């Protein structure tokens, strides 16, 4: 291939051409690009530290932990409590679990009255707490063979046999099989991990992790630990949450206060690539819409799902010749095969008018004017208004899906071409990059429509809609390029076209996001409805 492919190879290790790098360095808010996260991920692999993506002023601080981090965090918190009070590790763990891992509260309460607290959590079965803690320290709880022992629960053992038994600090001795079944029932049957108590009725002595590990098989103990880790995350008051990604067990730590959500959208991206919102738990990136707006919109769409169902149809009639047209890609610029009419899938309007200053596909024009006085007329307008925004919201969702389906086909073709021609794997990556960019930007566009639905009609909103229209136009252009047929001869040209279009789309997305998020901070957007607080 030509020499520019060598340049491309060099840059490709950072997933982009030199144009992309220029664009990135000229742009302060790199957090909007997923590339950074991926690179961070690789670094994190080497240094084995939680991922901390680069930050713009619109981003929140957060950390991503894997399960080993979660285990070692529990260990170090336990160590601290041990060193303060000179407790056994297993006892400190029981205390911390009882207090929902709130160390400050535990330290305060324990300092006030250690005996009472030990009794309360099931660590002081006898009369004197100090005597009991001595005996615990001196003789750790172990399995013990006892001759002539009969288990009170299962009646195993007799005068002349010896039975494997166990007694907690309280002294209630039962056979090891009964302890095993008791723990299995609690762990597997009831999903319990905070506290497993002695089998004697009314005895609240707690089984420590070390004791449980002696009586249950390995796989049950693992399940117990998994449950305990889950409880640690859920009980923790310092802002820990599981990543909603499928099969991802990572935990994200982030500090947001409810009042922050009026101006900040705390989107976090896990190592697995899943974006989610720490403010409202939404599984995805709903920027630039605030959490409150997202919540209102999601609710609205659920309530009106039937009204809007027809929109998700994959076929429509050509507005001129009425022949049926099926949408097979994400691009909304339709050309009728029969009459060659070019039209817009979303508004059914003439495509040639799109992008001119006279026509706004994205803006809702209330055509009823001031005559809409009676209730019926008003409700019709309000439905039309909703459908205008919902239509565009759901269309971007659907288009993103179609873009990806189309890409799956393209990828197969690329594979073949790679085998039959001199093209390399690296050389066909530009399509992938373009699809990723289109998908992300369609998500951004989606949420701009949710936000616009609630915005007041004013000059600020018009500026917002201008940014929205510019991004939309750029996205549709790139999406159209994705539908172009691929062959070995046209690839070099298509590649440069697509790379340029991809970079332009990204820059439009950044402009829109930066301006909108800045607007949230400056309280520049006014809504015609009260946005609920999530505090």
């Amino acid at each position, binding site marked *: 291939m030509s020499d520019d492919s060598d340049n491309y190879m060099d840059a490709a290790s950072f997933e982009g051409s030199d144009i992309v790098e220029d664009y990135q360095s000229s742009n302060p808010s790199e957090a909007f690009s997923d590339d950074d996260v991926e690179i961070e991920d690789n670094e994190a692999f080497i240094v084995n530290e939680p991922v901390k993506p680069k930050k713009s002023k619109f981003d929140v601080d957060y950390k991503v932990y894997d399960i080993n981090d979660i285990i070692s965090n529990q260990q170090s918190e336990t160590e601290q409590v041990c060193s303060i009070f000179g407790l056994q590790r297993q006892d400190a763990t029981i205390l911390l679990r009882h207090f929902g891992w709130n160390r400050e509260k535990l330290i305060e309460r324990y300092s006030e009255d250690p005996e009472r607290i030990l009794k309360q959590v099931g660590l002081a079965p006898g009369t004197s707490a100090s005597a009991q803690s001595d005996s615990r320290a001196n003789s750790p709880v172990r399995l013990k063979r006892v001759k002539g022992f009969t288990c009170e*629960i*299962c*009646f*195993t053992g007799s005068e002349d046999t010896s039975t494997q038994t166990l007694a907690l600090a309280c002294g209630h001795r039962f056979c090891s*099989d009964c302890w095993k*079944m008791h723990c299995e*029932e609690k762990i597997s049957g009831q999903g319990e991990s905070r506290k497993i108590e002695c*089998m004697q*009725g*009314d005895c609240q002595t707690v089984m420590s992790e070390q004791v449980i590990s002696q009586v249950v098989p390995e796989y049950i103990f693992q399940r117990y630990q998994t449950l305990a880790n889950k409880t640690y995350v859920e009980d923790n008051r310092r802002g820990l949450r599981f990543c909603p990604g499928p099969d991802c067990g990572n935990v994200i730590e982030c500090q947001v206060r409810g009042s922050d959500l009026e101006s900040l959208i705390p989107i976090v991206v896990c190592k697995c690539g899943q974006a989610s919102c720490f403010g409202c738990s939404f599984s995805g990136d709903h920027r630039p819409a605030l959490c409150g707006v997202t919540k209102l919109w999601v609710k609205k769409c659920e309530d009106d799902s039937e009204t809007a169902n027809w929109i998700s149809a994959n076929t429509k009639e050509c507005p001129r010749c009425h022949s049926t047209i099926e949408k097979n890609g994400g691009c909304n610029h339709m050309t009728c095969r029969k009459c060659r009419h070019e039209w817009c899938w979303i508004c059914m309007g003439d495509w040639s008018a799109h992008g001119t200053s006279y026509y706004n596909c994205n803006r809702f024009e209330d055509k009823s004017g001031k005559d809409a006085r009676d209730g019926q007329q008003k409700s019709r307008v309000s439905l039309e208004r909703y459908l205008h925004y919902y239509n565009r919201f759901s269309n971007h969702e659907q288009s993103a899906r179609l873009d990806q389906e189309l890409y799956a086909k393209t990828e197969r073709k690329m594979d073949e071409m790679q085998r039959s021609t001199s093209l390399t794997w690296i050389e066909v990556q530009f399509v992938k990059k373009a699809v990723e960019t289109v998908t992300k930007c369609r998500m951004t566009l989606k949420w701009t429509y949710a936000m616009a639905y609630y915005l007041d009609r004013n000059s600020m909103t018009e500026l917002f809609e201008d940014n929205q229209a510019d991004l939309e136009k750029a996205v549709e252009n790139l999406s159209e390029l994705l539908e172009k047929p691929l062959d070995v001869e046209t690839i070099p040209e298509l590649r440069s076209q697509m790379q340029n279009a991809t970079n332009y789309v990204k820059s439009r997305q950044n402009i829109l996001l930066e301006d909108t998020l800045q607007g949230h901070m400056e309280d520049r957007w006014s809504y015609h409805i009260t946005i609920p607080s999530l505090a």
Partner: protein
Amino acid sequence: MSFLATKRLSKELKDLNDKGCPTGIQLLQSDDLHKWIFELEAYDSIYSDDKLALMFRFSGQYPIDSPAVQFVVGELEGATYKAPVHPHVYSNGHICASILSDGWSPVLNVSAVCLTIQSSMSHEFTQPSLSSHSVLTSCKSKQLPPDNDRYVARAPENPKKTRWEFHDDTV
């Protein structure tokens, strides 16, 4: 049924047959090891004239898991049984007692459950001895639980499937 459950139930049954049931309690059915029925006489109580029977059903996890216990409502071996009208007993026979859920311990047994329920019918009995939780308590007037109709309309067949919230035991 697990080895433990079978062994334990056989032993309990043998003890009941050899040593006899506690006073006022009589084993009616135990052909099926999973399901036993006792006739219960609530002597010295306002229920002394009622014909009462308790049905026990055991899961494979018994005695780690508590038995399902309820009053028999209907015909049995030629006699008609009804649930006692008691603030902690629903008209379908289900019993709200912590000894049958949270307060259960594998150290307890069928005989202990029978005795606790029998005691709760008698006015002599004031404080439950087996658990600090609320259990059935003695009662001086025949009253249904306040939520009887609502509960009975939607109750599961097996009382163990109900998540019991223990009623105020000062009734």
